[in-house]
């Protein structure tokens, strides 16, 4: 019995790859991209299903702590573990950003890696001169004993396909007996457009994060003027605010009549609604919320030292859920808080009243005075006289300067164009080959390729019919 000779296999080339090539190949792998997408989906699902710290709170550790404490009622003993794992700020967490960054690198590397091959495929003419190719093609047709010579047959087919809108390329080495035709070859490049769009979209997001500015608490009481900020020299005066309701009780309209000025020069008068922001230079002002404000006057020795509307637009821990506003009297070394009733049943502050507390700057926990102001009844502290003149409203805006938004939407356009190009205009290819028939005339083979296009068999049938008509068979 003979023993077969052992053959030592040559080492697989993959085992000797240098680290850079290995990493490059990893990022080129569709499986790796798929794995990253699935991990991202999982993290996003967790971030959607589990409550997230509201964005305005994230910069204030005290507010975050208070919010997390409130979450104990929902998540029980898991609350602290979820907080430490970053689950309450999933989209700002390290794992989410790492996977998003890694996927971006994958898209970039994959795009660069495929570029030469796709470019070649776009510009190379793949002539098919063997009949075996035609016999194995998914869509193919054959006609034997066509009356025309091979060159005549192919010329007629070429003309017919040209009339159908195909680009027709004759084969110079086949003496006219073979032709290639295609449509939408440039659509092969669409995959780059969509992938580059994805990267640009993340660039838009990064631009917003790094260079954008927003003030979600831009609050103006009716009749008052506030500086717009965000690097602009403008002020905004609120002439009027209106909240309208349907007969059934639902909100119908919120609108603010504003005047924008630069110094003493009026720039624009406009009405801001929820879906109709005002654009002032690089800044957009959006209608966001509204609420109660109080007009306050402070006198010292009979002289008015402060008179303005104070929006009760905030909340502070020491006052529970009551609306709070504040103003400063720097010449007196005082910060003053005004606190309204939480509701009609509030025992501490009644309708037509506001509570008032004075603090020295830097000490927000020990008021130097406190009491309740009743409308049009002055109250005194030392030589200061405080009067709650009347109630009014404030309008709350979001003022935004976002240089990333245009980049984001341009990127979205690129992705859409790329996706439509890839899926709706795939590269369609046709071939025709004619050879002299033993019975005289020609044998003609036709083939067509357009992967994953359910409509292509019908298109190929149309191309075959056009060829048959041209050949009179």
């Amino acid at each position, binding site marked *: 019995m003979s023993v077969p000779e052992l053959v030592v296999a040559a080492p697989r080339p993959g085992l000797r790859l240098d680290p850079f090539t290995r990493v490059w190949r990893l990022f080129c792998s569709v499986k790796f991209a798929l794995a990253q997408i699935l991990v991202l989906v999982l993290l996003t699902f967790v*971030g959607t299903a589990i409550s997230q710290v509201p964005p305005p709170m994230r910069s204030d550790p005290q507010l975050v702590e208070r919010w997390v404490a409130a979450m104990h009622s929902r998540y029980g003993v898991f609350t602290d573990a979820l907080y430490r794992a970053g689950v309450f700020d999933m989209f700002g967490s390290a794992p989410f950003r790492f996977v998003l960054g890694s996927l971006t690198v994958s898209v970039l590397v994959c795009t660069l890696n495929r570029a030469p091959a796709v470019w070649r495929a776009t510009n190379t003419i793949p002539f098919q001169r063997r009949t075996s190719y035609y016999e194995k093609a998914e869509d193919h047709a054959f006609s034997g004993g066509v009356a025309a010579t091979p060159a005549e047959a192919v010329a007629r087919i070429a003309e017919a396909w040209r009339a159908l809108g195909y680009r027709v390329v004759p084969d110079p080495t086949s003496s006219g007996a073979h032709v290639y035709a295609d449509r939408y070859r440039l659509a092969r490049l669409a995959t780059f457009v969509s992938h580059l769009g994805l990267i640009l979209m993340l660039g838009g997001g990064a631009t917003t994060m790094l260079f954008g500015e927003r003030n979600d608490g831009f609050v103006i009481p009716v009749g008052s003027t506030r500086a717009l900020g965000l690097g602009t020299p403008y002020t905004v005066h609120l002439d009027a605010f209106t909240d309208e309701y349907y007969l059934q009780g639902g909100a119908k309209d919120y609108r603010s009549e504003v005047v924008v000025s630069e110094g003493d020069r009026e720039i624009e008068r406009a009405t801001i609604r929820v879906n109709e922001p005002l654009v002032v230079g690089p800044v957009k002002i959006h209608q966001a919320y509204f609420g109660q404000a109080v007009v306050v006057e402070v006198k010292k020795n009979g002289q008015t030292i402060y008179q303005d509307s104070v929006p009760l637009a905030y909340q502070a821990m020491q006052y529970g859920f009551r609306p709070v506003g504040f103003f400063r009297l720097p010449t007196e070394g005082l910060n003053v808080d005004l606190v309204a009733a939480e509701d009609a049943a509030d025992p501490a502050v009644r309708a037509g009243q506001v509570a008032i507390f004075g603090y020295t700057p830097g000490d927000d926990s020990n008021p130097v005075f406190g009491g309740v102001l009743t409308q049009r009844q002055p109250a005194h502290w030392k030589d200061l006289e405080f009067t709650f003149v009347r109630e009014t409203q404030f309008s709350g805006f979001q003022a935004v300067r976002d240089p990333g938004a245009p980049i984001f*939407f341009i990127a*979205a356009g690129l992705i859409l164009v790329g996706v439509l190009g890839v899926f709706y205009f795939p590269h369609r290819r046709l071939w025709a080959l004619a050879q002299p028939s033993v019975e005289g005339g020609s044998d003609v083979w036709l083939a067509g390729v357009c992967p994953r296009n359910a409509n292509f068999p019908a298109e190929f049938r149309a191309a075959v019919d056009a060829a048959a008509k041209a050949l009179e068979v």
Partner: protein
Amino acid sequence: MGQLSNYLVVSALITLVGAFLFYVAFTITKRKDVGQYASLAGYLGYAFLTATVITRWIADGHAPYSNQYEFAVAFSWGIMTAFIYVERQFRSRALGAFVVPVPVGLLLYARSLPDQVQPLIPALQNNLLLTVHVAMAVIAYGSFAVACGGAVMYLIQRDDKVRWLPFRQDIDLLCYRAVILGFPCMFLVLVLGAAWGNIAWGRYWGFDPKETAALTTWLIYAGYLHAHSLKSWRGTRSSVLLLVGFGATLFTYYGNLFLGGLHAYSGL
């Protein structure tokens, strides 16, 4: 007009239940006449749904997408639109037995919801974006429902031995076609939502639960399209992805009922 719309919903529901029964009967018997009755009932149900949407639109004075009832009806319309498109393209009536139950279920759900015509709140008062943004969602969700029905068929059709179902290759292509119809629409949902957010709230993306759920859904279908390009993932694995994707679609649809966030207004 609102009352007429409600009658039409009931008509659509009854007709689609009939269509479902005919589709099941056709799938089992393969009798041509039963298949024709199934398609006829399906088209009639679709016509009733279309009339429902139109009459509700007239009654509302804007596109009827402003609450869960209206969106359930529109979602059903989207599923039937995608189903009829795919059924005609692939001449696959068996698909009806797997897809039509979804709009039937949605219409039953809609019947359990308050159906009064309600005026738009300020946040939704953008007729163009309300119409296009939600219409894209309707088509996308509908396509994904059809792909899900196809995926169930694929998973039942083992080794092409189940005679009453189409071949696996055809089902796979059918699912793929349904997804490439819904995928760009879902992307438009995200982008138009971003555009609307940029107008109304001054931010095009805020990781709001509903928008994040929509992104998750889109990513799953992006994953499916990439998986479909791999031989090892085409077929069973990508069909499972389609089931996961439709789960995410339903999560996105119902999300505003329990996730809160800026889309919470469009609840019941």
